């Protein structure tokens, strides 16, 4: 069977960091080919090369068995390759039709702009109904849901003439229901003759929908096989490289203590359409427990985390009471750090670390307010240096040649460990962890989880917010589900996964 798309021997680095060292993958016409690997394995980078966005340093690209070289995305489009990225490349204030006009092939004969738009709208409606969904071409992108925007992206590449489709982690932002619908549609496209590359880290999707799978690890291709010939355990082993005993749920050694944090009726102001991002959140967090808040992203988790951290512009109604300190609403973020609230935000370089500053500075900022590093008029740099070195050692932060180097040079996992070193160095009473193992490999994730458990065991109250249901089920003593800005249900451990999944999609 001929190969629609083939990449061999690809090498690519970014500023000295080798993202791909010996990568290859091939996709045949009429198949769904999964590209499986952990975060950071290089899947997206490899596919960005196929889509013409990056140029490889070595290796070959073949389309339909012809060697090609792409100078840019347009060349890839000419070879009928279309990619749907994780971060959609849509112009938000434009309508669906306007966005698709940007990528549609130029008309054979002269058409006025208005005519072109109308023709494209017709094409959109036709193609959408062929694929089995509904899209209003005159709606603006920022008025569409994430799933709808993704459909626009797929329409975009199909209408641009793509026969080789690359989908980069398409189910990451979808509910289970939306995800299966999408993958079924994709399967249909393959059956009609297209070649589909599905980049994913979800084994279940690979087993259900892929004809073949290529496993990548650490920038190189490890194996190519048929999913029905391998078990999930085999796939895990190939992906991760060794059998790491992923711990199942471990109940806490000690019983939980009194209520540490109590959130009541937390609300954000209503938008003009009457929707609130946070719509009356009630939850109680005890000392010595991990409360896992599950839910699909975008349901208010970020805003809840921000409200507890004390970020500006968050909730205006309701209260957040911390044991011994009353209502936190009036307390500034700086003060909250001082009373033992530790935060591990989801947005590492947007909220936790300043990439352009040194490792030492990023560490020191956690405790400088307490006066440990000198009074306001004098900073004790020597102590900062030694404290940071000690913390780097204790938390196994790799890649730190000197604590004066920029924090941005750390890899994802090590940056997260630096954040942990900073936050846990203060023996916190409340830990807020939002997607703490996002972007980390299995080993780093395990370390993070161990730290969270240790914090719980020493009496802290831990609020774990995560879109990864596996992570929540492994760690939490109690599980809550957040949808549409409120807590839709709470479950004790051992929890029924199906029930939780159901609660995540139900819209109260």
């Amino acid at each position, binding site marked *: 069977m001929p190969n629609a798309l083939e990449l061999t021997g690809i090498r690519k680095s970014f500023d000295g960091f080798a993202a791909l060292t010996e990568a290859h993958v091939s996709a045949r016409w009429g198949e769904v080919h999964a590209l499986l690997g952990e975060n950071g394995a290089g899947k997206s980078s490899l596919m960005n090369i196929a889509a013409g966005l990056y140029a490889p340093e070595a290796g070959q690209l073949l389309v339909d068995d012809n060697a090609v070289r792409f100078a840019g995305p347009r060349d890839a489009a000419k070879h009928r390759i279309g990619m749907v990225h994780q971060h959609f490349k*849509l112009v938000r204030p434009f309508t669906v039709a306007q966005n698709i006009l940007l990528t549609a092939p130029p008309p054979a004969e002269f058409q006025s702009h208005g005519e072109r738009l109308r023709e494209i709208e017709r094409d959109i409606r036709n193609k959408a109904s062929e694929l089995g969904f509904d899209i209003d071409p005159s709606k603006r992108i920022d008025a569409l849901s994430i799933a709808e925007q993704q459909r626009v992206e797929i329409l975009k590449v199909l209408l641009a003439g793509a026969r080789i489709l690359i989908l980069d982690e398409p189910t990451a932002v979808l509910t289970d229901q939306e995800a299966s619908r999408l993958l079924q549609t994709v399967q249909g496209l393959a059956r009609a003759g297209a070649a589909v590359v599905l980049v994913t880290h979800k084994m279940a999707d690979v087993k259900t929908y892929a004809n073949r799978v290529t496993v990548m690890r650490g920038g190189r291709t490890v194996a190519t096989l048929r999913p029905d010939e391998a078990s999930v355990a085999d796939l895990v082993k190939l992906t991760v490289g060794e059998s790491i005993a992923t711990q199942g749920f471990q109940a806490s050694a000690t019983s939980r203590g009194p209520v540490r944090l109590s959130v009541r009726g937390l609300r954000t102001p209503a938008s003009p359409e009457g929707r609130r991002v946070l719509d009356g959140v009630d939850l109680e967090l005890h000392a010595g427990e991990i409360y896992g808040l599950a839910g699909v992203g975008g349901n208010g988790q970020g805003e809840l985390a921000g409200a507890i951290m004390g970020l500006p512009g968050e909730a205006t109604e309701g209260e957040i009471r911390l044991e011994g300190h009353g209502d936190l609403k009036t307390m500034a973020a700086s003060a909250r750090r001082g009373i033992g609230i530790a935060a591990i935000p989801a947005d590492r370089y947007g909220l936790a670390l300043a990439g352009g500053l040194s490792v030492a500075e990023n560490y020191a900022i956690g405790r400088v307010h307490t006066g440990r590093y000198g009074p306001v008029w004098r900073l004790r740099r020597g102590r900062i240096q030694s404290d940071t070195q000690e913390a780097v050692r204790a938390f196994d932060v790799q890649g730190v040649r000197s604590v004066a180097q920029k924090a941005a040079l750390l890899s994802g996992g090590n940056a997260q460990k630096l954040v942990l070193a900073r936050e846990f160095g203060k023996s916190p009473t409340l830990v807020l962890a939002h997607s703490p193992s996002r972007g980390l490999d299995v080993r780093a994730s395990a370390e993070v989880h161990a730290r969270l458990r240790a914090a719980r065991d020493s009496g802290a109250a831990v609020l774990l917010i995560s879109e990864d249901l596996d992570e929540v089920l492994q760690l939490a003593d109690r599980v809550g589900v957040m949808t549409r800005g409120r807590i839709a249900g709470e479950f004790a451990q051992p929890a029924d996964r199906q029930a939780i999944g159901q609660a995540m999609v139900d819209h109260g």
Partner: protein
Amino acid sequence: MSGSIVLNWLASTPDFAVPYALAALGLIISERAGVLSLGAEGLMLVGALAGIGAQIAIGQPAVSLVLAMLAASMVSVLFAVMVIWLRVNQVIAGLALVFFCQGLTALVGSMADWTNHATEGIGAMGLWPLSMLPGVGRLFEQNAMVWLTLPIFGAVAWFFTRTSTGLRLRAVGENPQAADAAGIRVTAWRFAAVLAGSALVGLAGAYISVVSTKLWIAGMTGGRGWIAVGLVIFARWSPWKALAGAVLFGCIEALIPQLAAAGVQLPQYFVMMTPYAVTLGVMVWVALSRRGADEEPGALGQPYVREERR
């Protein structure tokens, strides 16, 4: 106030409004493509000087205006190279451009001895039949550039809303990643937008020197370029709103000599503060009404690199 004062005031307003309008329009073109152009004040000076220089040498106003546009475009190439290719911070580059142009025009103007050298302007054109009306007919006797401004605005507005090319330019300014993925050459489009926009800004400056005052003095734009930058924010990047804002500022500036003629005694220098105070007021008003954020081009002021990881 007698009717003739009001008529005088309204009749002189377009002359003051045109520079603001054209400068704002030029800025809108470049900012819609995502390039924050703070160098307007400098480019207006270049246009003003080039226009007068050409007038002194050739004496043909139309040609002088075109040459002024070319001169401003050429100087803007320096700015475009800095912010688009070399990815210099757009604020620094804009400021550097202003001071570069201020120094350069003052130097060239004095060395070529063009300062205060009076030239011929262009005559007034009546808009028949409206100019035949008694009394108000005077309002419709304006010079050719005033009349030309309207179709220029129309052309640019049509370009942005009703052409595919305009759509592509807007895409470059809203989301260059998306535009790049769609095969649009972001760099080339931004270059084109800066050059085209700068030509209009240069034209605005040339209007002041060639048509309005008919001479050159160093620094004669007096901050109008900066006011135009504020005007674009006030107009939320829409050409027609910018025109309305320009008319507003034209009215204010035109009022000053009329009040003096009417014998109203106001401290001279406080009166000269008015355009700047109004600009400040306008910026505050925009911030208070808080509606401007939606229309701001999404990628305004940010340089674009394709191979940026993370």
